């Protein structure tokens, strides 16, 4: 029997939701266990196998000096490194600190702020080490997560597209909420991947998957304002899970009064 590739799952600053997406794939997990050796996955098991690893899935952003050291180590012991989720690919919701004073946050939240060792900014894994593939989403879509693993095993590029959510809406036959209901929707500037979940339930897209390949944030923001969305709300909607993703960050800055 050939040696099974070794898979590791790493957590940095994050909520664990993306790792849970992997555990959530009940039907596929057995098949996965037959195709890879799950060598390091603390969320699932405390048993660990030493590296190096063939594929590392990295969840979470870099927010502490310890994170910054550890990611270098993880990169060194990983043949392929794939980041999963908005934290790992864009800094996550915790990147809201990038727009504020972290020390002030620490004083407001912790009884003894002096024992908190944290960085001023929350940054993506790709800002620190080379990344082989970034899988977007808050959380990632479990079908896409499996597709990335299947693609890795076959040595082919993953079938993950970087176009807008609108493409998924239209392929599904979903009626556009922005046009038919006047509901503000981030879909035109947001990376596909969720299958246009929110428009399917008559809601606008919240941008969980971050910026699409060529996001015209300025045009969409102007359109929202034309349709009566206050500037402040445009700012707030761009500052969620992917606040620090460059196109969203830049556009949000334009809406600071």
């Amino acid at each position, binding site marked *: 029997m050939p040696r099974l590739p070794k898979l590791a799952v790493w957590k940095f600053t994050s909520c664990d939701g993306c790792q849970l997406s992997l555990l959530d794939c009940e039907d596929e997990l057995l098949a996965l266990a037959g195709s890879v050796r799950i060598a390091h996955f603390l969320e699932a098991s405390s048993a660990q196998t030493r590296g190096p690893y063939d594929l590392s899935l990295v969840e979470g952003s870099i927010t502490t000096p310890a994170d910054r050291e550890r990611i270098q180590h993880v990169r060194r012991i990983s043949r392929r490194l794939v980041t999963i989720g908005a934290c790992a690919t864009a800094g996550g919701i915790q990147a809201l600190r990038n727009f504020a004073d972290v020390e002030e946050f620490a004083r407001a939240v912790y009884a003894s702020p002096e024992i908190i060792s944290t960085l001023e900014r929350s940054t993506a894994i790709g800002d620190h080490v080379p990344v082989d593939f970034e899988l977007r989403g808050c959380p990632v879509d479990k079908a896409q997560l499996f597709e990335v693993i*299947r*693609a890795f095993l076959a040595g082919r590029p993953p079938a993950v597209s970087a176009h807008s959510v609108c*493409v998924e809406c239209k*392929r599904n036959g979903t009626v556009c909420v922005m046009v038919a209901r006047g509901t503000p929707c981030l879909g035109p500037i947001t990376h596909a991947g969720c299958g246009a979940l929110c428009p399917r339930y*008559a809601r606008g897209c919240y941008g969980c998957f971050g910026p699409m390949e060529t996001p*015209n944030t300025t045009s969409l923001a102007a*359109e929202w304002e034309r349709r009566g969305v206050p500037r402040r709300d445009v700012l707030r909607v761009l500052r969620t899970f992917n606040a620090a993703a460059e196109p969203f960050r830049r556009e949000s800055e334009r809406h600071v009064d």
Partner: protein
Amino acid sequence: MDEKTLRVVTRAALEPLPGLLRDRGFTVVGPTIREAAIVYDEIESLADLPIGWTDEQGPGGYRLRRRSDEALFGYNVGPHSWKGRFHPSDVLLFQAQRNGRDVEFTAPPTESPPVALFGARACDLAAVAIQDRVFLGSASIDPIYATRRRGAFVVAVHCTQAGGTCFCESMRTGPRATRGFDLALTELLGAGEHRFLVENASERGAEIADRLASRPASSEDLAAARAGVERARTSMGRKLDTDGIRDLLYRHAESEVWDAVAHRCLSCTNCTMVCPTCFCTTVEDVSDLSREHAERRRLWDSCFTLGFTHLGSGSVRTSTSSRYRHWITHKLASWHDQFGSSGCVGCGRCITWCPVGIDITEEVGRLREAEGSRAP
């Protein structure tokens, strides 16, 4: 159209029509209200139609509104076209299974029950004729389209009002359907009873029409039907001057108009996805965890994505201006060279369903203006 063969069917007497089609093995697909719009979906009976509703359309906007009557067809075209019926947005092309040293390929079954399009408008039938040319007209026939299209029955409806983004009059595709149907209805409201002028254009159309209680059309019925279509003709929400349009586009491979539209265009693909003639696809290959099984799917794609022109060295059309220019030039110019007609039938969907309301008729107007201002 031979006016002597036209019959009139009352609203009540039209009731059996969907059932008659179903009895003959058709899946009946027609307009119905879902998700705040009039979409095309399977219908059981006339009660599923958007009775007493209309649609208000403009650039980037669509709203359902109540009518003051109980019209069955008192609206224009919505977000769906018939394209999805014959050219599915996501379809399995083949599966492959490794068997020792061999690979076994299997194609999915292509059987598909014949469909009856119920309430197809002139612009959309012109679009079906264009897609027929694209998918069936050349040496390479698309088997998926061919299977689904084969034997389709068409109940056309001549438009008696035009929507805010309609311009079939400019494209000479409507508002009266002239071909591609088995039966055509003109809805007559207003003075007199709620009734339909019924025109049959095929043997199977006649067979079904014969089963509806009817009377010969009077000269008043005929006049009312003509007036209805005339009302649509004179109330087009948009106009497109098609004079020399192919060369106009070709003359403007370089133009500041493209840069201006690119400031607004989101490259979101909505215009291409809703267009009843756009046909482009991509294929996606996936393999399973065991690497023993693989499949290839075909999905709707759009010239507004980067992947559309992705080659070994990257994307060819990286700027939005080049993508918008490509789209409109194909629709209005190179389509003539490629398929012998315009690629635009004037349905107005790309205008209504563009989230930022970019208007193909306005953009052509801008090109003409740009040319006018440069002329000596």
